[in-house]
């Protein structure tokens, strides 16, 4: 039994519940039982004293009334008799004293007739003095003294002559009545006390085990006692204590078994959790597949994702792992994990081909702490997208390095040439310097393009947004490309409407977009061809079209021309220097401006790239008032 009685920190909070707890939960009989008995006995004593006092007041009052009435009657009779003969009066009083010893509940104890001059005429009985009268030196009975009443009455004749004063002393039945009250009260108190003590003992016998259990629970909850065995109770507390002890024994036994077989206990615990509805829902909602594989390599449990990934929505429980996954390496991984009690062993399994190809990563975790046995948990992760991302990243790096090598090769070769004797003539040196400058610029542009597109793709690009005057921007772009068009005798024209609203955007990025489209059009248009740049204002957007009469794009290539580093395998395309970044960069700029680029092309006939940039109503702003113009080369 727990030795310590803990304060009830977490006991009832409200006053009502505290009092209820105090009385109802057995705290009173357990801790204050003796005090309560003392209070009860004190109550009995108090009630006795009050009852005796009230009774005494009533009895003495009645005695006094009777004594006064007797005194008046005797005085009247004595007045009548004493007028004739004084001795007759004494005789009468003598007779009355003897006769009226017991009269109407009172006892006449003494009579005393005193003449008007104060001379005692008669006293009965002669040897007993009046209490109120002259002391005789004799101690009266204590009980009688407490109930004595002395009353005086004047003695008159019928004629009005005064014959002195008559004093009558009576004693009542106070002592006897008091004993009666005491006996009755004592019997009632004794019966009440016996009943209470019996009830108290019975109540206490029932409440003691409950109080003890409650103490133990408080001790356990507060952390004072953590050993279950210390929480057992004495069997003498009765049936509740025995039941409590049985419960503690079962808990101790369960605890001992769990400690003896931790792995089996943990596995059983986890399995039970898996089987619970909550954990089943939780595990079923995991994006990764989860398989529970027993020692016989059969699946004991599979979550919904696992069944879906492995194409067995009807369930996997009971199936052999080798039957479900057509890859011996997966089974071997599970075996190895069990044999080594390892976690984190993984194997990738590729299935399908072409567009249906997917790669699954199986990770095996042994559940037993000791190698050589136990169940294995296998998680399945579809890493197809991860693989695709890695492939795209590798492809990107491959193309980047390839594109960087071309200008680097020129720079390296021409720089080395400058250092060699025999190449130091003025013309050769000038030629080398020119190539170095142009290739350095080419390298810088390439690096800038790669950085720009990478930053825009990951969202770290910095944009300087402001009002962009498209009329001015397009005229500048066309002007910048006039030289390249002139070299190939290409007719570069610009067609603009009279009014074009300014749009919100990054002017430099839009320059890159338009320059790439116009530059591509010139680059892939044969000599003597045409390139037309046109702008039109639609309801919610502006459209910038770049149309050329160039080599065109095959339908199979049209879906890929906006991919990074993509260049058509066509010889006509390959014959022209390019990185395959221009259109990808242009599309990214359009996308980040909320727009898009459309392509219409026919192989051998030419292409039209149309850029649509949004123009929200709030952004219409001041219209750029420009006259219609057509810039012709």
């Amino acid at each position: 039994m727990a030795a310590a009685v803990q304060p009830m920190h977490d006991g009832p909070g409200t006053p009502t519940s505290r009092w209820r707890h105090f009385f109802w939960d057995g705290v009173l009989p357990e801790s204050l039982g003796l005090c309560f008995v003392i209070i009860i006995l004190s109550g009995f004593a108090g009630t006795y004293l009050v009852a005796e006092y009230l009774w005494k007041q009533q009895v003495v009052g009645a005695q006094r009334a009777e004594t006064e009435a007797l005194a008046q009657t005797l005085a009247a009779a004595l007045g009548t008799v004493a007028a004739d003969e004084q001795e007759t009066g004494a005789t009468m009083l003598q007779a009355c004293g003897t006769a009226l010893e017991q009269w109407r509940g009172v006892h006449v104890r003494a009579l005393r007739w005193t003449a008007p001059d104060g001379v005692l005429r008669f006293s009965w009985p002669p040897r007993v003095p009046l209490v109120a009268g002259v002391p005789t030196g004799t101690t009266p009975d204590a009980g009688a003294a407490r109930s004595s009443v002395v009353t005086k009455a004047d003695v008159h004749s019928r004629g009005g002559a005064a014959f002195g004063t008559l004093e009558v002393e009576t004693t009542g039945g106070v002592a006897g009545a008091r004993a009666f009250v005491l006996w009755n009260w004592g019997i009632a108190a004794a019966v009440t006390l016996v009943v209470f003590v019996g009830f108290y003992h019975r109540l206490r016998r029932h409440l003691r085990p409950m109080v003890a259990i409650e103490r133990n629970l408080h001790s356990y909850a507060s952390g004072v006692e953590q050993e279950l065995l210390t929480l057992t109770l004495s069997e003498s507390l009765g049936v509740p204590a025995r039941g409590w002890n049985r419960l503690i024994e079962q808990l101790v036994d369960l605890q001992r078994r769990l400690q003896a077989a931790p792995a089996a206990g943990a596995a059983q615990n986890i399995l039970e959790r898996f089987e619970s509805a909550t954990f089943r829902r939780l595990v079923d909602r995991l994006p990764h597949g989860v398989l529970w594989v027993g020692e016989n390599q059969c699946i004991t449990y599979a979550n919904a994702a696992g069944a879906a990934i492995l194409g067995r929505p009807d369930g996997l429980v009971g199936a052999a792992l080798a039957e479900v996954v057509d890859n011996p390496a997966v089974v071997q991984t599970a075996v190895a994990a069990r044999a080594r009690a390892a976690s984190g062993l993984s194997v990738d399994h590729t299935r399908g081909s072409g567009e249906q190809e997917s790669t699954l990563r199986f990770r095996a975790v042994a559940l037993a702490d000791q190698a050589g046995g136990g169940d294995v948990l296998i998680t399945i992760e579809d890493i197809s997208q991860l693989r695709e991302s890695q492939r795209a990243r590798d492809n990107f790096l491959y193309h980047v390095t390839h594109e960087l090598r071309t200008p680097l090769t020129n720079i390296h070769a021409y720089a080395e040439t400058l250092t060699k004797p025999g190449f130091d003539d003025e013309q050769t040196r000038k030629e080398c310097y020119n190539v170095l400058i142009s290739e350095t610029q080419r390298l810088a542009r390439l690096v800038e393009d790669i950085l720009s597109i990478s930053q825009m793709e990951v969202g770290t690009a910095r944009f300087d947004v402001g009002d962009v005057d498209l009329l001015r921007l397009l005229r500048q772009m066309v002007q910048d490309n006039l030289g390249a068009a002139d070299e190939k005798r290409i007719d570069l024209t610009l067609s603009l409407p009279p009014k074009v609203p300014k749009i919100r955007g990054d002017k430099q990025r839009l320059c890159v977009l338009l320059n790439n489209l116009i530059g591509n059009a010139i680059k892939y248009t044969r000599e003597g061809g045409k390139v037309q740049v046109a702008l039109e204002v639609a309801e919610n957007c502006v459209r910038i079209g770049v149309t050329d009469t160039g080599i065109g794009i095959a339908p199979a290539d049209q879906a890929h021309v906006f991919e990074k580093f993509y260049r058509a395998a066509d010889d006509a395309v390959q014959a022209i220097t390019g990185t395959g970044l221009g259109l990808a960069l242009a599309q990214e700029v359009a996308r980040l401006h909320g727009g898009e680029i459309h392509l219409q092309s026919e192989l051998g006939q030419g292409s039209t790239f149309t850029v649509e940039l949004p123009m929200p109503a709030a952004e219409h702003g001041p219209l750029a008032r420009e006259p219609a113009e057509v810039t012709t080369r």
Partner: protein
Amino acid sequence: MSRVLVVEDDPHILRLISMWLERQGHDVREARNGLAARELLRAEPTDVLVTDVNMPGLDGLALIEAALAMGHVRRGIVVLTNRWDHGEIRDRLAQWHVHVLPKPFSPARLSELVDSLATAKDGDSPSSVVASEPRPSGSG
């Protein structure tokens, strides 16, 4: 004086190689792509073939196949490529025992290599030339 056919689609590289080899006293012929080079080879054999791999039209690998089939390369073949890390290209080049110079390459190293091939003893065929281990920088 040996005849050297240089095939390269980058005009700057083509110009530089020609300049170096001419100053070494070689008779240099230029071609901007594989198709043009094949026509030149068909019309006239060469001592040394210096070619790029990635070219429009007929690429360098197809050009080497055609040259070997024609037997119109007398001394040796030098391949310039920036795709030496490409497995397929590497395997195909290895089977022909050609000399490979990864880009960026050293023009001096190329010039030395062409000189050594051009001065090889008569009767050496391109297939007998041991492939040189490419060096990342190609210097020297």
